[in-house]
């Protein structure tokens, strides 16, 4: 292997990581505040919710699908959770209800895609609107606020100085990485995305596993809802708007192929951190939120262009 190919291979394997370091170095030069412990903790904490949603998105995208409804499911699961808390349910039960709401919405997505034979784009686009509408109808458009300090500990608590949301995120990544790389469910997810027909002819129950992939994505959104609700001490029916953009971006920047069959959770985590650092850095630099959208959109496009170019080179 000559030097050029080695560099390409290297860039493909560590490209996103290099990108993250590059971004951090630039920001630490531009603003001294960036590299402070409190800011870095702040970044990871802000990243946690998107990173968790992106876990579900990674499974979906590896299976050659897409889930546009994550943000709306998050909002709906959040308001259901909040009303359960306010109705006096115990915290663990309320959290389970919130998670189940997310999982259920995801299962509906999955059933529409498998048994209804709808393209994932359409069924999750529909769910994006239905779940958002459900959240608004359920709350009559008003946020549900004010929970006990115990529940809020989920967002404000720390363990060894690390915020709880970050710990939850790490646990989810470790578990999901195990599922993706070591279990039948993970293997089938890759296989379905790589070639659905061949997977079916290998005796895999494709319809069931595909449904479960979307259920899992809904569940991840439900978990995002739990953390967000605790952090804001409030469940907003308009929460999570455009979250699908961040989750898809994290996954794709992390090297998952929208054609399916390829992707890793390490990549997605780095992708989510890039998105988080970028938003944080732009805020620190005082870039207007309007301009931020342009920058972030451009970064997504450039990242995927570079990845595609490297893939073409590296074969």
């Amino acid at each position, binding site marked *: 292997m000559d030097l050029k190919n080695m560099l390409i291979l290297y860039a493909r394997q560590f490209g996103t990581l290099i990108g993250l370091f590059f971004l951090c170095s630039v920001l630490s030069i531009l603003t001294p505040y960036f590299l402070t412990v409190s800011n870095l903790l702040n970044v990871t904490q802000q990243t946690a919710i998107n990173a968790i949603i992106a876990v579900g998105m990674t499974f979906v995208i590896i299976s050659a699908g897409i889930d546009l409804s994550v943000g709306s499911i998050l909002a709906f699961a959040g308001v259901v959770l909040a009303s359960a808390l306010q109705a006096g349910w115990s915290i663990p039960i309320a959290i389970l209800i919130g998670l189940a709401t997310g999982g259920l919405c995801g299962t509906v997505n999955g059933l529409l895609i498998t048994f209804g034979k709808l393209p994932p784009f359409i069924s999750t686009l529909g769910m994006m609107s239905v779940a958002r509408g459900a959240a608004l109808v359920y709350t009559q458009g008003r946020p549900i606020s004010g929970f006990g300090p115990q529940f809020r500990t989920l967002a404000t608590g720390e363990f060894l100085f690390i915020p709880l949301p970050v710990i939850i995120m790490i646990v989810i990544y470790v578990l999901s990485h195990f599922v993706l790389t070591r*279990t039948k469910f993970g293997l089938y997810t*890759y296989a379905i995305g*790589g070639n659905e*027909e061949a997977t079916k*002819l*290998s005796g895999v129950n494709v319809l069931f596993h595909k449904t479960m992939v979307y259920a899992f994505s809904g569940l991840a959104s439900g978990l995002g809802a739990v953390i967000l609700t605790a952090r804001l001490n409030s469940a907003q029916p308009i929460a999570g708007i455009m979250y699908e953009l961040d989750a898809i971006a994290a996954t794709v920047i992390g090297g998952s192929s929208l054609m399916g069959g*390829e992707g890793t959770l390490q990549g997605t985590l780095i992708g989510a951190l890039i998105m988080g650092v970028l938003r944080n850095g732009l805020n620190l630099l005082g870039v207007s939120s309007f301009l931020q959208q342009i920058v972030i959109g451009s970064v997504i496009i450039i990242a995927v262009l570079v990845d595609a170019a490297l893939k073409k080179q590296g074969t």
Partner: protein
Amino acid sequence: MRGIRKSFPGVLALDNVNFALYPGEVHILLGENGAGKSTLVKILSGAYQKDGGEILIHGQAVEINNPRVAQELGISIIYQEFNLIPHLSAAENIFLGNEPEIFSGIVDRSQMSREAGRLLRELGVQFDPRTRVRSLGIAQQQMVEVAKALSVDARILIMDEPTSALTESEIRALFSTIQQLKEKGVAVIYISHRLEELFEVGDRVTVLRDAKYIATHSIRETSTAELIRLMANRDLKEHFPREKGELGEEVLRVEGLNRAPLLKDISFSLRQGEIVGIAGLLGAGRTELARAIFGADPIDSGRVLVKGQPVRINSPVSAIRQGIGFLTEDRKGQGLILVLPVKDNIALPNTDKLSRLGVIDSAAKEKLAQRFIHDLSIKTPGVEQKVMYLSGGNQQKVVLSKWLAREADILIFDEPTRGIDVGAKVEIYQLMNQLTARGAGIIMISSELPEILGMSDRILVMHRGRISGEFSAEEATEEKVLGAALGQRV
């Protein structure tokens, strides 16, 4: 066309082929599957580039680099699978890419409809050119294709298996259309497997075999028997190391299997240690039969018995549970997951054995792959290699490993050696020998007659969804098998 040569990686598709066509004649192109007919017409229509030889039109040498050039030269092709856009109207399809314009960019729709109507009327068909193609019947769609070819003033019209989807009366109508085209001086190249048709519609016939030009005859001076002999006759140079063993118990029996309109009343059986070859032309229903047995497609009626017991197979999951393995014809499309490594492909149908509570034992998975890489001498840098980077023969061995690891004892091989080089072919044949020696039964679907004759213990021939002939290895000859495949009474 003189001395046309064309090769694809690993195969010579056309070797020094000559072909002459005169205005107003219908010239039949005849040959087995893979003889080179399609490649030849694709070169003429600009879909492929020739590697050598020359093409002369009215004595002028021409270079046909792309379909556009062919069109300008008056060459049109109608593929077996139509190239029509279902949501557009007949008129829009006919003039696609060639629309009459009021001025630049603005389509003259009324003229388009008028012209399309005129073309269709000339072809003797009656329907509104504004009808969407998807609501037309097959025969009408074909007329749209013909009209499309005529709209660009085609002087040479190529038709690939034009009657395969038509009813008897529609075939009549097509033949009278072809007659009209002839009278206008259009030259027609007609590819078909249906010998009886050829004598009705053709003027001359050219036979290709194994990528070579064999002969050209006037239809009036030849016979079905001679054509079959020309198509089949070849030297059996490839090596078929079939080792026959003792046949054991019956492992599979299919009774009265129907799946309209593709499979009609199929019955046969398979014994331990036996290779049953299934021959037939493309579209005869062989792959459909395999998919039906494997539960990949639903059946209308009939039953399947495994080791004497009637079983209900309604999905690949249940077929696999009965010990059936299926090596699909389309290795890349249906057999393998190209982006995944060797070990994952082999593991896929075997996860029940490799996992506990859903967790896969990585070491066992790797060991399984290592074992088959060794046993089948799969050439790969390792278990982690993505199968897309393996050669065809090694890919096929990976597919085979999937089913061997399951210890499937009823194996359906659909075109097991397609696109595989000769050395790897022999290895696959030897594996088939080992499998039957161990008591497996194999159903081998193949379009390569020498392979069918060389490897099968018994040969079934399919024609239009039915079994049209059955031969023992001893009595089978190329002529008999080909005759049955072409629908002749045996």
